[in-house]
């Protein structure tokens, strides 16, 4: 057995046992801790599968951002957890749920294992049609040229999610600032980190967007880094979360998708199809969309983490 195979097997066993551990964890908090570690191990697995774009997205969004959201949810639900557990379904029902889940997992595994050899793939087609876009990263090519409609919907879906978060705010709180971010006691270490790290984060984000055309990277990963930097600054208390009624921030939220749609509609006349790019202009247009979407997605992610607005004075009292 080669070293690579051994490390893969160890990784897979780790991921599987961690998955079991998450399922049987006693509290939501423990389960979330396991989930974050699980995401990091999945990142390594994606790297081993040479899917670097997926690995970066998994690390930034799947593990990091979702982890923070789940931590906030677990902290909020903790007081009710004991009561919930008392009302847990009977053992027979739980066994049934477990059996059904196992059945679904086995079905999925069977489908993957019974794929014809070689597995059906569109990869050669993508490689063949990549040059006209001026891109060299096939993932970006698929996301922004061949399957642009999926990416458009994907970047817009964040807005309904954000509206969903905002809609749980009470009417009286509407003009307040988001207040879900944890505010740890002021400490020099946190302030130092929040002052030193953001410039590096912004640089990394710009780098990720820029190389996204040719190498693994792109707007979602860059947006996650930007959002993380902003959340860090807000958590350190160096800056307050923006009020959700602010028109400027709302404008930033929609500018990415709007530009995408505008370029898409212009394509109807200029390139004979919705979301098609005129010849020779594909790469500059794609980069413009990527940059605008990075800003919008970063704001959306940071505001998602900041939560619904709370009453203004409660926010001030925390300072």
């Amino acid at each position: 057995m080669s070293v690579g195979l051994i490390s893969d097997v160890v990784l897979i066993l780790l991921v599987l046992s961690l998955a079991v551990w998450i399922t049987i964890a006693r509290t939501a908090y423990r389960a979330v801790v396991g989930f974050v570690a699980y995401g990091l191990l999945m990142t390594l697995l994606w790297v081993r599968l040479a899917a670097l774009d997926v690995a970066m997205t998994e690390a930034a969004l799947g593990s990091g951002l979702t982890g923070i959201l789940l931590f906030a949810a677990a902290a909020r639900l903790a007081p009710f957890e004991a009561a919930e557990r008392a009302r847990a379904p009977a053992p027979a029902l739980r066994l049934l749920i477990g059996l059904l889940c196992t059945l679904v997992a086995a079905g999925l595994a069977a489908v993957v294992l019974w794929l014809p050899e070689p597995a059906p793939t569109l990869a050669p087609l993508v490689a063949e049609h990549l040059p006209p876009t001026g891109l060299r990263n096939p993932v970006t090519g698929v996301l922004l040229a061949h399957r642009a409609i999926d990416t458009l919907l994907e970047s817009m879906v964040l807005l309904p999610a954000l509206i969903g978060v905002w809609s749980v705010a009470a009417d009286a709180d509407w003009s307040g600032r988001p207040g879900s971010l944890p505010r740890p006691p002021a400490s020099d270490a946190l302030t130092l980190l929040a002052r030193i790290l953001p410039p590096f984060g912004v640089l990394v984000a710009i780098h990720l967007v820029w190389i996204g055309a040719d190498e693994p990277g792109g707007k979602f990963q860059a947006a996650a880094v930007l959002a993380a930097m902003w959340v860090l600054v807000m958590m350190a208390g160096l800056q307050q979360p923006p009020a959700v009624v602010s028109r400027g921030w709302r404008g930033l939220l929609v500018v990415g998708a709007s530009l995408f749609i505008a370029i898409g509609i212009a394509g109807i006349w200029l390139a004979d199809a919705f979301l098609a790019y005129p010849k020779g202009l594909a790469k500059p247009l794609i980069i413009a969309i990527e940059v605008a979407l990075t800003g919008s997605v970063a704001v959306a992610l940071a505001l998602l983490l900041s939560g619904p607005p709370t009453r203004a004075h409660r926010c001030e009292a925390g300072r």
Partner: protein
Amino acid sequence: MRLALDIFTIVMVSLGGLFFLAGTVGLLRFPDTLTRLHALTEADNLGLGLVVLGLLAQTSWPLGALKLIALWLLALLSGAVVAQFLGAAVRPADWRTDDVSGPREDGR
């Protein structure tokens, strides 16, 4: 020259791995959070530093090397901050930052 660089890499990365191993053993065996934290930061700082040092011989100068060094520095920064946080969270109430000699005299 190539051989010398390869040997340098192997030695340095192995040394780094040793520190990670020691850090992990410490994390599992040390009695309380503060000492475990010490073991962990040791692995992060020295272990990762040695691994990066070893890999410098294999990468392109300057971009690849600078990226590796930046990675190490960022890991140092985040490790130090997280250690401060965990330390502050588990610090007993009778410890005072302005009175460093306090805890030992209190007979802890």
